[in-house]
């Protein structure tokens, strides 16, 4: 398998704050990786470095290119939507399509128009006349009409209603993802993307605290639901995190065999959101 992204000791500081702190990882072709972290964890900075929008220390290669120095070449094969990337309010929908068509060799105008056709976004409308949901629809239509090797989505569905969000992720899997493309996605609504991810990366305080494939998670992590004396016994196995739900203790373990745990109660695989909280709070 070939690596689409290779990061080695990547760091980025703003003044004395280290937004990204000596991060190394790789993302393989054909994977859908969720980059998950709390606000201010360094997600957006890391994505910007991947996109060549900010320089950084260390070595970073995306599609074999140096993103900061070869941003133009990179952008021909990469596309992204970020919650902070806003479409200009003065532009008309048709002008936007004209522009992208003129500068982007891998953009299919027909595809974008087909995607927009069922929506309420009309070609003559200005962006400022569209609702937030419609602007995102427009932006996503443009992005998905670009035949890119790597798609980076930074909070793509922020502020959209649940119907649209479900539809978007459904389309992403059915129409866009073909096993050849690679997707990196960040979102706070982890539950919604859990089922489409193949890999997950947790980032906190600029450091990657977990980098695993979804298949590895059940092998490595387990959640034990127990109470009373059993809980005390289970605590000796050093859970990374513990919480209480309806009088039951839920203990999260890293690298402890499930057979051992099942002596104390019900064992299951934690969902990503719970695992994320366990990793972040457990480390604190």
């Amino acid at each position: 398998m070939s690596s689409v992204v290779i990061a080695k000791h990547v760091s980025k500081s703003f003044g004395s704050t280290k937004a990204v702190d000596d991060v190394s990882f790789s993302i393989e072709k054909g994977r859908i990786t969720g980059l998950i972290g709390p606000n201010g964890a360094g997600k957006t900075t890391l994505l910007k470095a991947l996109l060549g929008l900010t320089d950084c220390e260390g070595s970073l290669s995306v599609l074999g290119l140096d993103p900061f120095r070869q941003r133009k070449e990179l952008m021909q094969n990469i596309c992204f939507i970020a919650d902070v990337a806003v479409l200009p309010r003065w532009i008309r929908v048709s002008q936007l399509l004209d522009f992208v068509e003129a500068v982007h060799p891998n953009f299919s105008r027909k595809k974008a128009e087909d995607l927009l056709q069922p929506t309420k976004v009309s070609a003559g409308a200005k962006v400022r006349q569209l609702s937030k949901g419609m602007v995102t629809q427009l932006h996503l239509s443009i992005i998905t009409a670009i035949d890119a090797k790597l798609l980076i989505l930074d909070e793509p569905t922020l502020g959209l209603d649940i119907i649209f969000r479900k539809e978007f992720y459904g389309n992403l899997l059915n129409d866009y993802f073909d096993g050849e493309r690679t997707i990196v996605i960040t979102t706070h609504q982890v539950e919604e993307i859990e089922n489409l991810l193949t890999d997950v990366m947790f980032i906190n305080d600029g450091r990657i605290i977990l980098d695993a494939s979804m298949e590895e998670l059940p092998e490595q992590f387990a959640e034990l639901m127990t109470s009373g004396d059993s809980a005390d016994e289970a605590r000796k196995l050093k859970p990374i995190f513990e919480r209480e739900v309806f009088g039951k203790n839920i203990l999260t373990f890293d690298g402890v065999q499930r057979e051992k745990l099942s002596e104390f109660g019900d064992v299951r695989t934690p969902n990503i959101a719970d695992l994320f909280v366990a990793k972040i709070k457990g480390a604190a």
Partner: protein
Amino acid sequence: MIANQVALIRRELWEHRSLYVVPAVLGLVIVLIQMTGQTAVSAFGTHIDIALLGATNIGPNERGAVISVLLTVLSGLLVMAMLILTAFYSLDSLYAERKDRSILFWRSMPVTDAETVLSKLITAVIVIPVITLAFIAATHLLVLFVSSIWVGMRGANVWHLIWSAVPLLDTWSATLIFMVALSLWLSPFIGWFLLVSAYTKRSPMLMAILPIIVLPMLERSIMKTTMLFDALFVRTGNLPIYRDIDLEGLLSSKESLRMAAENGISLVSMLDVGRFVTSPGLWLGLTVCGLFTTAAMYVRRFRGDS
């Protein structure tokens, strides 16, 4: 590269509609004022009208010169508007995309920062003068057309009095040469405005103008020299494009006036393009513009969306 430039410049015109709306409105206002004026003059009766034109007792060259001067005054109004528009445009061009937070979208396209900044420079230095010229020409034609109706309604020969006499091509060529030369001459300011526009977090106008005023004052009070003042203000007013014409001599001698009347006065012949392109001041200015523009490219590249 060129296809990208065309797309980027089109983008500029979509965003900055004032670049053609303002000259269009100004042109229409000029024509409206003219119509009002002529209607008002008509109220005094027809006999003075044609006499006012001095139409029959001066030669075609003189008539052409008079009309040329009138048209040039109108051009002057639009050129002044152009200078103001260019200043506002260049100050806004790299600031607006950060203010409306669309910069990340633009940078998500396969276009380099250098190409983007270059498209803004080309728009300011070349595209705006060309657009302005189009509106100047349209205004001239409208003004002459309205005058033709007015003169025609009084039974005079419109072709003879106006259209055969007016050197339109000469006027327009001279105006275009002058405007492009002016833009190139003032390009260090455009470069500076682009840099401020890329750099500043707030009020680009203030940030651009303040150093231009304060630095020469400081230089004068601290170093007792006026180098900056000369470079910023004295140079600006001395566009080296006019041919050395002894205007006083021309106007004081009857002989030279007669010669001019016989041969006609060409505006283009008053401009000396050779002198302009070989003047060190132009190349120094273009170098300064290039440095500022390059700095603006780097600022856009390194600064991100903050």
